[in-house]
C-alpha cells in the first residue's frame, strides 16, 4: 500500500459515514481500486448501512397525539384554575378595592353635605387646608361625571378579561 492509511473495516465505515477527510477519502479510493476484495467489503458495509437507514421507526398506538393533547389540556386547565387556597387573596384584594372606592364616595359626600352646613359654635381661625382644595376638586362637575364612567370602563375591562379567560379554558377543555 502506497499510503499511510491502514485499511480495516472501521475505516470502511468511516468512509461510508463520511467521517474521513478528503485526503483520507482519496487514499481509500485508490486502495479500493487496487484491492477488489476490499471493494466488496465496502459494498457490504454500504448495504448494511442502507438497511439501517431503511429500518422503520417505531410507531405509537393510534390516537397518541389525541391522548397527549388531552393530558396537556387537563394540565392547562388545572394550572389556570384558581386554587382554593388562593381564593382568599383574590377576595381580599377585591374587598380592599371595594372599600377604597366606598371610602372615597363617603369622603366626597361628607365634604359636600356635612361640612358646609355645620353651624360654627366658636370663632375659629380660618386655616386654608389642602383638604379644602381637594374638596373643590371633588366638587368639580366634570370630575363627578367622569368618575362613574371610569369605573364603568374599568368594570367592563375586568369583565372582558374574565370572559376571555373562561373561553380559553373552554377551548382547552374541548381540545381546540
Amino acid at each position, binding site marked *: 500500500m502506497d499510503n499511510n492509511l491502514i485499511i480495516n473495516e472501521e475505516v470502511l465505515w468511516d468512509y461510508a459515514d463520511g*467521517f474521513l477527510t478528503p485526503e483520507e477519502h482519496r487514499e481509500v479510493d485508490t486502495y479500493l481500486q487496487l484491492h477488489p476484495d476490499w471493494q466488496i467489503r465496502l459494498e457490504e458495509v454500504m448495504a448494511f*448501512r442502507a438497511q*439501517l437507514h431503511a*429500518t422503520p421507526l417505531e410507531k405509537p398506538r393510534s390516537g*397518541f397525539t389525541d*391522548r*397527549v393533547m388531552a393530558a*396537556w389540556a387537563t394540565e392547562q386547565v388545572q394550572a389556570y384554575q384558581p386554587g382554593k387556597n388562593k381564593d382568599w387573596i383574590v377576595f381580599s384584594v377585591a374587598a380592599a378595592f371595594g372599600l377604597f372606592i366606598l371610602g372615597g364616595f363617603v369622603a366626597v359626600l361628607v365634604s359636600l353635605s356635612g361640612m358646609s352646613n355645620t353651624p360654627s359654635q366658636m370663632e375659629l381661625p380660618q386655616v386654608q387646608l389642602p383638604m379644602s382644595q381637594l374638596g373643590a376638586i371633588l366638587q368639580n362637575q366634570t370630575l363627578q361625571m367622569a368618575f362613574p364612567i371610569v369605573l364603568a370602563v374599568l368594570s367592563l375591562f375586568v369583565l372582558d378579561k374574565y370572559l376571555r379567560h373562561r373561553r380559553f379554558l373552554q377551548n*382547552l377543555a374541548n381540545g*381546540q
Partner: protein
Amino acid sequence: MAALLSDETLIQQALTGRQTAYAMLVKRYEQYVFTLAFRLVKSREDAHEVAQDSFMRAFRYLPEFRGEAKFTTWLYKIVRSTALNFLRKQNPDIRSLDDEARPVQLPDLGTPDAAHDLERRDRNLTIQKAIALLSPDDANIITLFYLYEHTLEEICQMTDLTMTNAKTRLCRARQRLKGIMEKNMTLEF
C-alpha cells in the same frame, strides 16, 4: 399546509396559546420521541408513558427553547432525561443508561421456535430486534445517526459527548449490533 410550517413557526404559535400548533408538533415528532423512548426503556407500554411525559415536559419548557440548537436536539435531551427518571423510579439503582450500568442482556434465542421465528422475519425486523438488544445508549446512538440521520455534531450536542467519544461510541455500538446480528444468524442454522 400544516406540513409546510417550520418547527420555529409552530413553536411561536404554540407559545401564543394555539392548541393546534401543539398538536402539530406532537404529530410531527411522535414517532421520533416514541422510537427514542422505546430504545431507552425497552418496553412499548413504558415507551408510551415516557413519550407522553416527554411531550408534556417539552410543552412546559417550550418558552425556554431558544432555538440555538435544532428542536429535535432539544427534544432528545428531554426524552432521555424523562426516560432516565422513569427507569430510576422503577429501579433506584440505575444511575446512567450506559452499557456498564445496564449490560446487554441477550435473550436465549437457541430454541427452535425462536430461531424459526427469526427465520420468518425480514431483514428490517432482524435489525430492529438487534437494536432492541443493545444497551439504551448504544441503541440510541445507532438510531440517531443511522435512522434519523443526525450529524455527529448534533449527537454531541444531544448527548454532551465529545466528538471523539461520540465517534467511539458509535463505532462500538455498531460492532455490538453486528455481533448480535451475527449471533442471531448463527442461531438460525
